[in-house]
């Protein structure tokens, strides 16, 4: 440093001791201010950081709500389509050929057993009967002739036999005897003819009875496939039945139960029927019997159910959705489906331990019922099951609990 500079410095130094004092004061103040500001800033930031850490800690603990499992219903439902049939159902055909003369009951009519449904006009049958009757009468007349002839032959023969010997020749006598015998045989034949003709008349008269078509049992006319003047052919080989009568006081419902689901279906099992035409109504039915054999073509078991039909709402041939109420296990519990944890390695639920520690348990499901699900095993009725479990929930994690809700009734 040069001398001049030093002089100058001294000049600077000496010229203003007040300035130096002020400067020192200002310097100290500035340092205090700076350190203070830095300290406040750092402490503030530190405090903020602590708060943030606490906040994060709080937020990091998942909050869950729990549900208590409810006792499940005693039954589970199996739904299958079925067909409704009548208790009895008979298609009615004609036994006689002819033309329909008149009918008395139409579709849907209630009929009693023996009620006249229709009459058939059978002119050829009537003619045959008349002929047969004529033939009978003529045979009967022949019997009278034969009787008279036989009596005459007998008297002649008696007379000849009673005459003294020699008066009549043996030849003559034998001849009269033969006449008599022949007359007896003729009579017998004539009598037989009458019986035969009588039989014929009886048969035709019985056929005449089939001109009247009669209800076989109490029921409903479900079909009338003929009309006045229609040509009627006897037997079922030609054309449709004339009438169909069904007994609908009770119905039989047939369901093809797939083999896979057929295990629980036994006679006596209750079921309900849902019909498309009665959306708000159900009907009860009971399994009466099963075919006890799986049909090979469709691999189904034929199941027959019976259902009362007092008002006649169940109609023959309807489609029905049959809900079988199968017996479920005794200790089935029900939890909301939203409590299930869908993870690889099987379905689980998260159960809350006493210290809010999470425990994951495998569960075996019964039938999924939609909003709720039946659990066959894995949880007990006193467990606190976590509803809506977070995706990442793990065994042993500690969680906050907000509230308990019950599964919604379904």
């Amino acid at each position: 440093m040069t001398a001049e500079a030093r002089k100058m410095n001294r000049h600077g130094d000496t010229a203003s001791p007040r300035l130096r004092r002020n400067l020192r004061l200002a310097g100290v103040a500035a340092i205090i201010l700076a350190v203070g500001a830095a300290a406040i800033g750092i402490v503030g930031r530190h405090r903020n950081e602590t708060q943030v850490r606490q906040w994060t800690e709080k937020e990091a603990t998942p909050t869950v709500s729990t549900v208590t499992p409810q006792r499940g219903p005693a039954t589970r439902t199996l739904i299958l389509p079925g067909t409704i049939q009548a208790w009895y159902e008979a298609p009615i055909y004609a036994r006689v050929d002819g033309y329909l003369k008149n009918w008395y009951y139409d579709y849907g009519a209630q009929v009693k057993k023996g009620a006249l449904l229709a009459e058939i006009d059978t002119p050829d049958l009537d003619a045959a009967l008349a002929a047969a009757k004529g033939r009978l009468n003529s045979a009967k007349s022949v019997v009278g002739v034969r009787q008279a002839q036989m009596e005459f032959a007998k008297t002649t023969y008696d007379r000849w036999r009673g005459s003294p010997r020699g008066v009549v020749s043996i030849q003559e006598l034998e001849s009269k005897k033969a006449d008599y015998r022949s007359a007896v045989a003729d009579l017998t034949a004539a009598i037989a003819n009458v019986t035969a003709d009588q039989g014929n008349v009886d048969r035709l008269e019985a056929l005449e009875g089939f001109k009247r078509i009669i209800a076989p049992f109490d029921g409903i006319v479900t079909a009338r496939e003929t009309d006045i003047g229609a040509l009627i052919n006897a037997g079922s080989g030609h054309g449709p039945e004339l009438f169909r009568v069904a007994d609908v006081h009770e119905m039989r419902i047939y369901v093809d139960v797939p083999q896979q689901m057929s295990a629980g279906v036994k006679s006596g099992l209750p079921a309900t029927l849902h019909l498309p035409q009665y959306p708000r109504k159900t009907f009860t039915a009971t399994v009466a019997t099963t075919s006890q054999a799986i049909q090979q073509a469709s691999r189904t078991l034929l199941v027959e159910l019976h259902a009362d039909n007092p008002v006649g709402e169940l109609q023959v041939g309807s489609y029905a959705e049959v809900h079988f109420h199968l017996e479920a296990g005794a200790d089935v519990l029900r939890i909301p489906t939203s409590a299930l944890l869908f993870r690889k390695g099987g379905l689980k639920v998260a159960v809350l331990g006493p210290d809010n520690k999470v425990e994951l348990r495998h569960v075996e499901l019964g039938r999924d019922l939609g909003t709720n699900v039946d659990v066959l095993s894995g949880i007990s009725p006193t467990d606190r099951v976590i509803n809506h479990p977070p995706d990442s929930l793990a065994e042993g994690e500690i969680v906050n609990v907000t509230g308990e809700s019950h599964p919604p009734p379904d």
Partner: protein
Amino acid sequence: MLWIVQVALRRPYTFIVLAIVIALFGGLSALRMPTDIFPNINIPVVSVVWTYTGLLPSDMSGRVIYYYERTLSAQVADIEHMESESLSGYGVVKIFFHPGVNIASSLAQVTAASQTVLKLLPPGITPPVVLSYNASSVPVLQLALSSDKLPQMRLFDYGQNFIRPQLATVEGSAIPSPYGGKILQAQVDLDQRAMQAEGVSAEDVLRAISAQNLILPAGDEKIGDFDWNVALNASPIQLDHLNDLPLKKANGTVIYLRDVSYVHHGFPPQTNIVRVDGGKAVLMTILKSGTASTLKIIEGVKALLPRIEKGLPPSLKVDAVGDQSVFVKAAVTGVIREAGMAAALVGGMILLFLGSWRSTVVILIEIPLAMMFALTALSALGETMNVMTLGGLALAVGILVDDGTVTIENINWHLDQGKAIEPAILDGARQIVVPAFVTLLCLCIVFVPMFQLGGVAGYLFRPMAEAVVLALIGSFTLSRTLVPTMARYLLAGQQEKHAPESHTEQQAPRRSRNPLKRFQQGFEAGFEKVRDVYRALLSLALGHPRTFIAGFLICVVLSFGLAPFLGENFFPAVDAGQILMHVRAQPGTRIEETARQCDLIEQSVRRIIPPDQLHNIVDNIGLPFSGINMAYANTGTIGPEDADVLISLNANHGPTASFVKQLRGTLPGQFPGTTFAFLPADITSQILNFGLPAPIDVQVIGNNEDANYAYATDLYKRIRRLSGIADTRIQQTFSYPQINVDVDRSLARLVGLSQRDVADSLLVTLSGSSQIKPNFWLDTRTGVSYPIVAQMPQYRIDNLSDLDNVPITSSHTRSPQFLGGLANIEPGPSAGLVSHYDVEPVMDIYAAVQGRDLGAVARDVQRVLNQTAKKVPPGSYVAVRGQVQTMKTAYSQLYFGLAGAIVLIYLVIVVNFQSWTDPFIIITALPGALAGIVWMLFLTGTTLSVPALTGAIMCMGIATANSILLVSFARERMGEGADSTAAALDAGTIRLRPVLMTALAMIIGMLPMAFALGEGGEQNAPLGRAVIGGLLVATIATLFFVPSVFAFLHRRHGANPAETTSSPRPTE
């Protein structure tokens, strides 16, 4: 360079005309330039959207996306990386290209690749939709369609088929399908019971429709003189008539379609619900694409709306919501206002210092002209008017002033020396031209590293740097040309009045003529006192150089100790008054239930946000109808359990961040099992987050899905506990509930059915026929073709038994079988989303920050990753992506840029001074500037960020400029024979005024920016603060530390300096 000044003086009209030309072009550019929030971020992306209704995510990934991605990697060049998401029914592949790629040829390659793979993919799949867009493609406007009369499906129909095609003509707009509503289609509702009763399967119905509803031409027939067209009733005109199509003949009666189904104008099961304040609506999003400006697009749409509305039924209400133009306009006017305020403040300051209104006028004319020049040049470069370019201009105000002020002040000084006007101008200019040029060079060089910035930050800050550099060049030129010209006219008058009175280097006290003058004289007196004190203090420092230098350095180093407490963010948060909340209920939650939850969530939100601050709430629930929306959306919606809740606040709202914090604290506790995430809602953060719903994205990449998921879950649990982290979530879910239908193939075969029969029946029952048997019905009145879709209505099939009872037939079987009889049906888990990154499966852990800076949280995350590095499944790897990654790159580039700037400045001044020592003395001011930046950020609680670092780099340039002035003066003094201490003291004292003026001009110019007054001004506030803090301390360093160092280093040279100074500034 002096010749130009001479020209200016000799031919003054030249530069007046130049000024007028600049003003004209500048004004024109200002009017013509597209206005936007940000510069165009041209990171090209091509999205490819595959659709196959009903295909499970895992199948979509395995059977469609993988094939395609492999083909892409083989056939398409310049791929930066590829991402894909496979959802139920959709597959979206996003291909990110290297910047500067020829997007047209890439697009062609991508399209070609999709044609190549088409035949290898599941039958019936349609070619994908290929979309090209870039990072600035964000929603700018939304139209909410609502009506009290029309059903939802009509709303969607009007949006999709009538409004959308018309709006598509607005330049730069991209409009995906509407959100929400119901899609109008010809719906064939199958009745399972009737079908069972009639023994008809879904397949039969489809067969009947395709056999009876034909789109086949008949032809023509020539009869007589005419050629007649022949029309066949191949397709019914009335939709109702489809009901009468015969289905099959049984027992002599014909079964019609109406017997087993009902054909009507219907809708497929709703997958997307939109509600505006609880009322069902349809939302049309208008995105910005291409280079058109946000404002133009919105104006265009709004101009078209009245015409469109005329064609719509009067009961249809079209409301514009989420209008970003308001924000853009506010932000842009905010910046302009900042610049204006800066100019006004600086003008006042100059008036005070120079005490001459004429000088002030010269400068106030020069500044706008320099800006106009910059605008014209920017417009020529294809830049837009945006927050960044305007911010750059605002930033430049201080420097511009400096340039002009130095010139004027020097001219004044020479005038005061009693020179005539022209020699004064020439001398003043000569004296200033080299330092001014060096300063200009320094400032420009400082911005060179900014041009190296990569990624989003680069696209944002390059235009800003351009703006500053251009303004500086303009100002430099004008200071050499226009300023002398104006000085000649204006200052000549001043000289006549004042010249006789002036005898000191600055104005001597004058008689006061008006209050302003009196005030100015008072100021001058005050300034003299300050100068005295400064001189005393400086000589004190020079007296103890070692103590002072050491003390100062210790203070600086200690100040750097505060740096770790600053925290690091990528960009400052912007409060745009919107909250975008992503809600995810339990995986697989049905959309109706999610909607119900959203109702409850909305109630909670309304309890937290006061009603007078809440503008509206828009819910967007579930997956949009069209895959195109999936390509644009990046909120992370993967299924019906997801909802985006957009909460818009009124202008008078409280801080958005505090609402978010409250919501984060309240909602998860109220809705257990539901996750909440707060996504960037405003246009700025959306652009910065580009394609990701969260700033932190930890990816576990590799093929071992199970192990990776286990590891990701473990990682998630650890990350969740990190301080300051929020919204942690794993994007991929593997617990999406699934019903596995396991058909017994042998049994099916025995009863005459194949797997195909089962599959076909199930598809029609559960997802409709549109994918396998597309068939269309044309509405001849509107010209819209609607797909005919046969499907079981969802309300008819709502439990497992209904699934059991799905009838299955084939042509070989007479009576139908039932699914339950053929298959084992069991629930199980499935993947809800399969994502790939570069053709490898990836799992994303998303997280955001709350109350802590991103850098610190990212470091903690990295620590966790290091801790668990051993647990990473073999063959897999972990990557941290998202904003964190971009931030790291940007920071390292900026730090490197900062160091590079200092080195470059040093080298430039070495050339200038032809010395190694003096430039070193000059840059010793810079650590002080850095310390000042640290202090200012620390005290204002501002974190480090890209703008702050930009400010720091900028500060280097300005701090050097001041330092140069001082040192070069001191060298002159030494050259004149003074010893180093005296030279330093004189330099300090004499340069005090210009140094203070420059610094004050900059600081005052930055003040409006630092206070973040405008809308979205938070963005650039750290820049202003950094510059102010840096300059405050840098000025002190320049005034005390630099002279001390100068005196100390040159102490041996004494009064007779050994080296011959080649002073750039000739002295008089």
